[in-house]
């Protein structure tokens, strides 16, 4: 399928539209309780756009990605692709759509079959979709060239490739069926620092050339800032802030986004010394959610009342402990939405482009 004969997304619906998605897993001794890994997540991804989904371990970002591509079944909520509700389709009904929605995984080596040649691995989605073997192979070799691999290496096995090359194979496989949406789950975090930039550049080039939309799931805020148009920040299963990258990074409105950005170490000793950091107490893991402050397990079915971030929030008030703040849905056209009773209104605390640490105007407000 070439971009030309594809139906374009109309104004009525974005390419991907996720509404109130939840995914619960059984927990507790007898599996009677439930942990809500994803708890009412809503967002849209427009054609050709990159939405970054960031958060710390256990925030539900990967589960969200896997639920969208139906590697996991959603508990409640809907996923519309190209205007069509795909959240309740059977796996058989989904198969034609698998051409259009593909996934790239974190660990390139464990996501490639070690007993198949890379040409066979890349051709696999085409074979599943019923392409003749010769066509699929020819296309696989073309794809190798597209992602910067040498087609002559098509008969080699994954272990003969370095991590960065193996991730190129994973990307080529994802592109084999000509998808419009690629869900990339931590695509560069297993790679060496010197190789990450190659893969980031490759993904950006492919997006321009092929008009792909990415749901880019990552914990590395610097990488996400580089590749995304919009960004959604997740905390304990919920989106706490979503909006245009420029807005979220320059003036984060949610205290968690602020703390997250201020915690990223900058590769610049002078900036590091000059910087004001917001140090959060506690940790973000869902297991801590299951434990009360006294260390005894809290019933998993009963998460903390109010805002889930309030136990770690430097500015939590009574209302935060009682009432969960609501996030309005962040549409592609809107600048930003935040789920907080007391969103920040000042400019960023992080170092902004072009300002040397000494030259910053007003120092950021000191925080408790």
């Amino acid at each position, binding site marked *: 399928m070439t971009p030309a004969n594809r139906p374009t997304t109309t104004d009525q619906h974005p390419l991907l539209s996720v509404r109130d998605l939840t995914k619960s897993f059984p927990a507790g001794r007898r599996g009677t309780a439930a942990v809500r890994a994803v708890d009412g997540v809503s967002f849209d991804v427009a054609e050709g756009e990159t939405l970054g989904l960031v958060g710390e371990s256990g925030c539900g970002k990967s589960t969200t990605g896997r639920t969208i591509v139906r590697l996991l079944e959603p508990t409640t909520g809907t996923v519309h692709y190209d205007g069509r509700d795909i959240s309740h389709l059977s796996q058989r009904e989904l198969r034609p759509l698998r051409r259009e929605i593909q996934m790239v995984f974190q660990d390139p080596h464990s996501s490639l079959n070690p007993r198949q040649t890379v040409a066979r691995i890349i051709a696999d989605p085409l074979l599943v979709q019923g392409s003749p073997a010769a066509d699929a192979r020819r296309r696989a070799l073309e794809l190798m060239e597209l992602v910067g691999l040498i087609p002559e290496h098509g008969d080699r096995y994954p272990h003969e490739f370095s991590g960065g*090359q193996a991730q190129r194979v994973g990307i080529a496989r994802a592109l084999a069926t000509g998808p419009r949406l690629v869900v990339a789950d931590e695509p560069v975090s297993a790679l060496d620092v*010197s190789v990450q930039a190659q893969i980031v550049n490759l993904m950006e080039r492919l997006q321009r050339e092929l008009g792909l939309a990415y749901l880019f799931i990552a914990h590395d805020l610097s990488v996400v800032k580089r590749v995304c148009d919009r960004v959604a920040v997740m905390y304990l299963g919920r989106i706490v802030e979503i909006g245009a990258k420029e807005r979220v990074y320059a003036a984060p409105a949610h205290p968690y986004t602020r703390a997250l*950005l201020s*915690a990223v170490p900058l*590769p610049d000793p002078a900036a590091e010394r000059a910087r004001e950091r917001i140090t959060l107490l506690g940790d973000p893991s869902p297991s801590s959610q299951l434990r009360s402050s006294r260390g005894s397990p809290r019933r998993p079915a009963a998460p903390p009342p109010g805002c889930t971030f309030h136990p770690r929030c430097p500015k939590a008030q009574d209302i935060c402990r009682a009432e969960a703040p609501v996030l309005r849905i962040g549409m592609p056209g809107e600048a930003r939405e935040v789920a907080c009773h007391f969103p920040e209104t000042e400019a960023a605390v992080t170092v902004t482009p072009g300002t040397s640490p000494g030259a910053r105007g007003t120092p950021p407000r000191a925080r408790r």
Partner: protein
Amino acid sequence: MTLPSPEDAPTPVERDEPLLSVRDLGVTFTTGRGRVRAVDQLSFEVRRGRTLGIVGESGSGKSVTSLAILGLHTGADVTGSVRLHGQELVGLDERGLNRLRGRRMAMIFQDPLSSLHPYYTVGEQIAEHHRVHFGSRRAAARRRAVEMLAEVGIPEPSRRAGAYPHQFSGGMRQRVMIAMALACEPELLIADEPTTALDVTVQAQILDLIVRLQQDRGLAVVMITHDLGVVARVAHDVLVMYGGRAAEQAPVDALFATPAHPYTRGLLDSLPRLDDADDEPLRAIPGSPPSLLAPAPGCAFAPRCPRATAATADERLRCETQRPPLGGPAGHPAACHFPSYEGAPS
């Protein structure tokens, strides 16, 4: 804080004498596919109260180096010299090493869960440490364990001392590891990717803790990491490793301001940064880190090096066939035939 007086109290180090001195360290493994020189001709020093950041990618030899300092390589051929307080550690027998490990030098690892015993409470594990090295009584050792847990910021330390490792979160477990490492007042702490498995907000807490404890105790710290941001935050001096060798050594500000080795410069250029102004394509380093099984005769970085590529044929031949020695200014040496000490990257 009360300490039972250790029978082998550390001799005070002379002011200018390094606490840890590594000279010409070499580590060779014999594998089914041949001998691998994982670390070669590595030399560095760490003084009290200073943090040396060792930066490198997978296979650069940074972790092998840390294990070699502690004498934890069995079956590897370790050559050269590692001196702690002037005492030679290479070739020292297990008994001698055991007296130093955990007592004079301690280590924390990336994954605290796999470094803690699941069957004993954390209090017992810290206390055991103390009893082994100081022969202290059970009650005194337990008190010491609680003190240490308090010092590393674990709430309700006397109660939490009775908890098992799985009952702690990742960040709290790393605090437990730090408490254990520092329980016997070592002078040298080696931290091997201590925050790599942690979330960024927790990483900030642990780095702050390590910096505070170092200042309080005048520790010498070796921080091994792949993250230049972590180095920028905690290190005083930096050693960049590539292919088992030192590529560049410098005080932290000099390294980031004027990276002399093209690999260091390439790393800094290729990083996506929060404080980047615009969205030009990243300046990626082509290729992959080298295999140590078949090391190139020349500079390990030459196949990926922009300076070697841009050089004349003669110069390139030099890069490809002659291994560059670590040279240049004494305070900022680089292992490159064409080092550049001018200007910051980007």
